[in-house]
């Protein structure tokens, strides 16, 4: 009996650099960004750079939507012809309906033909990205479907995100502010420091200055005794994140950090000027093993 061939699927909110997705053979399903009547597929029709330019120019705020069930069905159909199992990992179901679409589509593939496991990552951005990468590596190592699923669940616990939006306005307008709602309405000008935990945005702390917020991001990195992978995701400028990268370099080599821009969908919900650090704690992994 041959080993089961497993394909990993995720969505565009994972902020996976194209190079990594292709190296690890991960399929990325795009969410949608709507500017007025125009619809763009996140990362396909609209790169992050183009998105932020449009965001600055457009008077009305964009909105986002999950991939339709049909899109997922197409993807799964295509993959089912060449593999035995699909593990489809997605942005927290409390932040997007993507997981729901995927599940519905998954149920239309008969299990005898191809097993489809749809998993709610309870996170997003590179948090989701690292989980998908871990799944792909596990699949490449020849693990069984159940073992890969187990690995996914394990890595979900090891992934942590701390981020600082420039303002809470975007989160509030997009309805994803979650428990950080408590931070709104302060009479003092504050910068919110947030995390994603239990699938929702949660408050960590309020600080008064941007510099202090950057301090927190650095301290977050310092906190972990062993870091397997790190990402810095942002919708700010290279000049703004440079000092932070230099600082982090002292405790974790910056050339190992995946630095990437927040995709259009997440960018819509947190706004420009956001900086976030994603850490996967644990032992270092050898790439592609």
């Amino acid at each position, binding site marked *: 009996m041959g080993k089961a061939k497993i394909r990993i699927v995720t969505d565009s909110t994972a902020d996976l650099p194209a190079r990594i997705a292709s190296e690890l053979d991960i399929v990325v399903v795009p969410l949608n960004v709507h500017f007025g009547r125009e619809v763009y597929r996140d990362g396909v029709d609209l790169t992050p750079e183009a998105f932020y330019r449009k965001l600055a120019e457009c008077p009305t705020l964009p909105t986002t939507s999950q991939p339709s069930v049909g899109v997922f069905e197409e993807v799964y159909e295509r993959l089912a012809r060449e593999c035995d199992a699909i593990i489809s990992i997605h942005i927290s179901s409390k932040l997007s309906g993507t997981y729901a679409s995927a599940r519905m589509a998954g149920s239309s593939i008969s299990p005898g033909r191809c097993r489809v496991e749809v998993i709610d990552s309870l996170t997003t951005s590179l948090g989701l990205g690292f989980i998908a990468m871990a799944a792909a590596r596990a699949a490449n190592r020849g693990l069984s479907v159940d073992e890969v699923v187990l690995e996914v669940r394990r890595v979900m616990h090891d992934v942590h995100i701390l981020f600082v939006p420039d303002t809470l306005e975007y989160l509030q307008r997009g309805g994803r502010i979650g*428990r950080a*709602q*408590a*931070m*709104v*309405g*302060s*009479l*003092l*000008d*504050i910068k919110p420091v947030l995390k994603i935990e239990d699938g929702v945005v*949660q*408050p*960590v*702390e*309020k*600080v*008064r*200055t*941007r*510099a*202090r917020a950057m301090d927190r991001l650095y301290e977050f990195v310092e906190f972990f005794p062993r870091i397997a992978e790190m990402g810095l995701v942002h919708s700010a400028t290279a000049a703004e994140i440079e000092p932070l990268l230099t600082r982090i370099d002292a405790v974790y080599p910056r050339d190992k950090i995946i630095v990437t821009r927040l995709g259009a969908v997440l960018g819509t919900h947190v706004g420009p000027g956001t900086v976030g650090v994603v850490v996967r704690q644990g032992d270092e992994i050898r790439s592609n093993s």
Partner: protein
Amino acid sequence: MAGAELGLDEGLVSSVIDSQPKRIDFCTGRYLRDALRSAALSLEAHVDEINALNVFPVPDGDTGTNMYMTMQAAVGEIDKLQEPTLGAVIHAAAHGALMGARGNSGVILSQILRGMARSLDNKRVASPSDLAEAFAEASATARRGVLKPVEGTMLTVARDVVDATTAAAAAGGDVRDVVWAGLEAARASVARTPSLLPVLQEAGVVDAGGQGLLVIIEGLWRAFSAEQQPRPAVTAAARPAPLATSGASYGYCTEFMLRGSGLDAERIRSDLAALGDSLLVVGEPELLRVHIHTARPGRVLDYAGELGSLHGIKIDNMQEQHHHWLAATVAPPPQPPADQASEAIVSPLGRGEGEPSGISVIAVSPGPGLDRVLASLGATVVSGGQTMNPSIRELLDAVERAATDRVIILPNNGNIVLTAQQVQSLAEKEVLVVPTETLPQGIAALLAFRPDADLATNSSLMLKASRAVDTLEITRAVRSSRMDGLYVQQGHLIGLLNGRLMATGKAHESVVRDLIRKARPDGKPWELATFYYGAGVSAAEAEALLARLRSRYRAQQFDLIKGEQPFYDYIISIE
């Protein structure tokens, strides 16, 4: 026993003591009661004098006020006694002082009374040596209650009194001799305080707390000696309360919660402004907390009663400090709906579910504008401007009213830290005090609060955050003085940096700039200055000052917030 033999009757001080000075071999409950009443009167007559001794020439020196109010609270409890036995009197005094203690000096005084109560306990009468022992226990208890006892303060005076009274009792003196010895020792000790504490020497004053203790012992002496005593105000007919609304020393301190719907705090505030002062109206459209000093509490309650239901009504006669609790059940704080972040006055920070396992933060605020800022950051606010130090009872009540089992207190004033620590030991709930000494430290600590972390983690996070800001305070000197090599003229502006007098001048801008220079001598950069402007400053003035400063400091951000605090034109945080 001895009381009956001496033929004492009830009544006022002047009639208790025999007109011939003869030996008083035993101190009875009635003697002690009258002595303590006399002490309170003595303090009352000297409040301003003692306040003026505050080393800082700042307008909010309040040692006199704090000690007087603490003593009044003690006497208030004594007045309720049916049977003034010695033990009952001293325990009542200790309990009253404990609850009513305000400020550091008030708390130390309450510890003194507590020590006396522990020593005298259930004795029916006290011999001279019993009294000396009681003073010794009092001194030791007070000393134990202070984390870092400093010589040249009330504690030194107390110890010197103990030495003298012990000696007098051992030499066979009577009660009068012992009190006299204590009085003489106190006088000498107070005069020596400048030699023990250099800052007193430089300012040219004796220690305020020590002087307060001396005044108290003078009062005790007057009761035991043949000297005539003025009628104590406690049992005198009430002075006619003026209908004018000015003057916080008259009228009734009136507080209540008003529950209704669509309550308009601004409107209520302007309506009530005509009825009194020290007015606070804070909260939500469904639940407001109202606090006012008024000569007509009935009018205030009638007015508010038309707008909704009243709860937890408290009226203090500020002259006599009698407490009347009406409608004693305070309504439990409203449970916020689960999907809505709660900003009700008594809700824990950041929790929408009102879980009792969460943590509340109680912050003491010096002004109404700051009440609003602190509440907007999720704290439960207790008002306590410099001269409105909250008492142990007030803080304790806030702790008990909080919806959670764990509470953090931010005193935000050096003079309230000890009070908060007392509350910590008295409260049944788990209380953590983060010893913030200024409002900016308190705000920094509040911002650092993590609702999902435990008390220990919050303790270190909040303390660390409070130390990361520099506090600048601008006020006017109430007298000319010399401090830290700086000569200050009465009426001029003075600037304090993290509690130390560091600058003086005639214009706000120059004092601020001087302080900023001194705050960052090594050129360590700062990003943000937040100015909380006080009740004596108009918005236009404040904005003009900031405009000038912004043009000088182009790289930094300046925020302006209406604080409405008394006495301090500006409280500023630099970070």
